[in-house]
């Protein structure tokens, strides 16, 4: 509350009544937009957590026996994606401890259960404003991970468990697209989804890059491909990549693909473009002057639009990605200030 507000002037009577005449497009409540935004970010995050855990486990099966140290580094890198510094205290082997911590631990705000709980809490508070289908999808995926038999199902088949989380997130996002009018509300869903995806994708690439390409981890050359395939799988991009670049897994190609493609929904540039469009629509819908979030994201988009891989490498992949994360985090704060917390 310490921030002096800028946008709180009351609209004069005439323009207010004009606004009301727009009928259905009446401006949504700030709290509502806030809840919408976080609901969608958490659903997207739960999906990433599930995919990362699932892919990591299956990649490790493929690469066979690794040294404990290498194994631990790979598992710890999952925590690093979500900015968690230290592994959870536990008597279990690290892999097991991290899997459970990232799946069930309520005290961990980034665990699947926490993400879905928060997503659902937000959904519940705006229950009247989302479609019954969205609510039912989210509610049943929440009930499923919080059910009494959830841990038993998890122990029985991790893959099935994670796949059901992935499927429910996909279902939820599909329903968001198909059952909501594409008005302000939907634009917030878009911004949230893409902000989250940009952040997680860049973190995944960043942490894996430093493990695999910068030699933090020594791995036998024949296993290198499997690891890089794991990165693509974690970003849901393996099939498209393979179709376009058959043959060897070239880290530079992968980086270029995940950062600079503008026609693939998992690549950063695509996500930035979508977020930017949504921010522009929101600004027009609420009749305001250009706002800081739009400016930040627009600038980032221009940068990506005209970037070359060589440039990226000059800066250093890691620094380049961290800059993206920084820009997105600034933009997210700006959205909050402009729309929710004035």
């Amino acid at each position, binding site marked *: 509350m310490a921030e002096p507000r800028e*946008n*709180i*002037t*009351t*609209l004069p009577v005439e323009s*207010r*009544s004009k*606004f*009301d005449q727009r009928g259905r497009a*009446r*401006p*949504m*409540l*700030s*709290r*509502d*937009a806030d809840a919408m935004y976080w609901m969608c970010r958490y659903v997207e995050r739960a999906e990433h957590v599930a995919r990362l855990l699932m892919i990591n486990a299956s990649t490790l099966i493929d690469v066979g026996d690794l040294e404990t140290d290498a194994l631990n580094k790979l598992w710890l890198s999952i925590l690093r994606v979500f900015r968690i510094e230290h592994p959870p205290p536990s008597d279990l082997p690290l892999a097991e401890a991290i899997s459970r911590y990232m799946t069930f631990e309520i005290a961990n705000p980034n665990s699947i259960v926490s993400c879905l709980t928060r997503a659902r*809490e937000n959904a*519940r*508070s*705006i*229950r*009247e*404003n989302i479609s*019954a289908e969205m*609510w*039912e999808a989210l*509610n*049943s995926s929440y*009930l499923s991970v919080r059910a009494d038999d959830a841990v038993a199902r998890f122990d029985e088949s991790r893959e099935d468990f994670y796949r059901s989380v992935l499927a429910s997130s996909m279902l939820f996002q599909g329903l968001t697209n198909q059952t909501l009018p594409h008005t*302000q509300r939907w634009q917030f869903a878009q911004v949230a989804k893409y902000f989250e995806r940009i952040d997680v994708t860049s973190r995944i690439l960043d942490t894996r890059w430093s493990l695999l390409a910068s030699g933090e981890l020594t791995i036998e050359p024949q296993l290198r491909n499997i690891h890089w395939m794991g990165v693509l799988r974690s970003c849901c991009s393996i099939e498209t990549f393979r179709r376009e670049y058959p043959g060897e897994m070239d880290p530079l190609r992968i980086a270029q693909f995940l950062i600079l493609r503008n026609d693939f929904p998992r690549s950063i540039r695509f996500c930035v473009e979508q977020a930017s469009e949504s921010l522009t629509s*929101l600004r027009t*819908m*609420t*009749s*305001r002057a250009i706002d800081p979030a739009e400016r930040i994201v627009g600038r980032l988009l221009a940068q990506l639009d005209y970037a070359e891989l060589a440039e990226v490498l000059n800066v250093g992949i890691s620094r380049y990605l961290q800059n993206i994360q920084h820009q997105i985090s600034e933009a997210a704060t700006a959205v909050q200030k402009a*729309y*929710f917390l*004035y």
Partner: protein
Amino acid sequence: MTPVPYNRSLAEEESSIAAQKTMFEAYQIDGLFDEMFASANVTRPHYESAFRGLCEFQPTDFDRRRRMADVAFRNQGITFTVYGDKRGVEKIFPFDLVPRIIPAHEWDVIEAGLSQRITALNLFCKDIYHDQRILSENIIPPEMIYGAKFFRREMMHVHVPRDIYIHICGTDLVRGKDGAYYVLEDNARTPSGVSYVLESRAVMKRVFPTLFAEYRVRSVEDYPHNLLNTLKHVAPPHAGSDPVVAILTPGVFNSAFFEHSFLARQMGVDLVEGQDLVVENNFVYMRTIAGLRRVDVLYRRVDDDFIDPLTFHPESMLGVAGLMNAFRCGNVAMANAVGTGICDDKAIYAYVPEMIRFYLKQEPILPNVPTHICARPDDCRYTLENLDKLVVKATNESGGYGMLMGHQATREQREAFAEQIRKDPRNFIAQPVVELSQHPSLVGDHFEGRRVDLRPYILYGDKPLVMPGGLTRVALTKGSLVVNSSQGGGSKDTWVLEE
């Protein structure tokens, strides 16, 4: 006699007769008024089709339908919150699939009685917050009003739009052994439960389509529409033809949050919390992504005490500071108005028949349950002497709290209550035990009688409008008379029949 709805083979016929014996076999009337059966083997005429329909079902059929209903309720998140229960905050409202049926001629009386009652209560509120004729003419002793917990002095001389204080009322009715309907209490603050009525109906249509086909049941679906019109009716003139209506909720942790959200969705209005609102120069605005937007009518589901920290509870985070001033200026309408809690006071309840005579010059159509007001010395003495035969209630509690069922209580409980009554007689009333009517309910794999009450909902806009139906609440434990959801009661769909 309605013909049997299905073409069935003889074998099926036999099996259904067997089922009929099974599911109603243990059924006992126990000398109570039974909604379905006039006597052991005689079905009341309006229940005949339903009875035969129900006999069609095998216990497994019925169970499958019960599970369908449960899933429907759970998936939709139709839940309520029980305070003081550590195990998770939300619960599904227990739903009993056997519908309660009310014939048209009975409903006509209820409807007339409830309309009369809400009209009198609104006149009472207007009077008590202005001229107080009912006090100066000695119909109600002044100390009953001034000593009431929910009498709001802040409302004295405040003009409310169209003199309507109670826009939405939920009045609890019970039937005694004689089958007559009695008013048990009025809920003139923020009655809840109407969303369950609408949702139960939707679920029943999915689960029992054939049973529905047998009856012409009056629809309850237009309630949200009527509610919105009722709210718009009191909008301030500056709001023009399309006033901005919003529902004010305490938030997701409130026991009735589902209902607030449900009604907002059904009416297509915003659901706001106190933090969404701001009062500026005596107008109320909500914070939207496009700046502040004026609110003209608030259907508030926040109690008086919490609605404005400036006027009432200073620590409240649920309301908005300055709301009372905006209300006082007529810049925002509130439904229900502040101060209607006076009507929920169980000692004031006892005077409603007098109010009807005083303001309307009519005889009450629906009687009260006879009530002893402990604030009167004679009544108090009688109550203390007959504690084992009476139900004693605290005047300002609801939800089944602060109650003594004298005939079921232990001596210690009775003595503890007697002590409380002596200390603060104004806070108590006593009533004879009403042996509530019973209705068949599904218990395990068969039907048993369970006690029921009925909460119809009344809207007061340009005229009183009684929703045809209401919330029938069921005491799910055998013999229990307590039907409140907070005390483990369930609900059933209520069918009011067309002529």
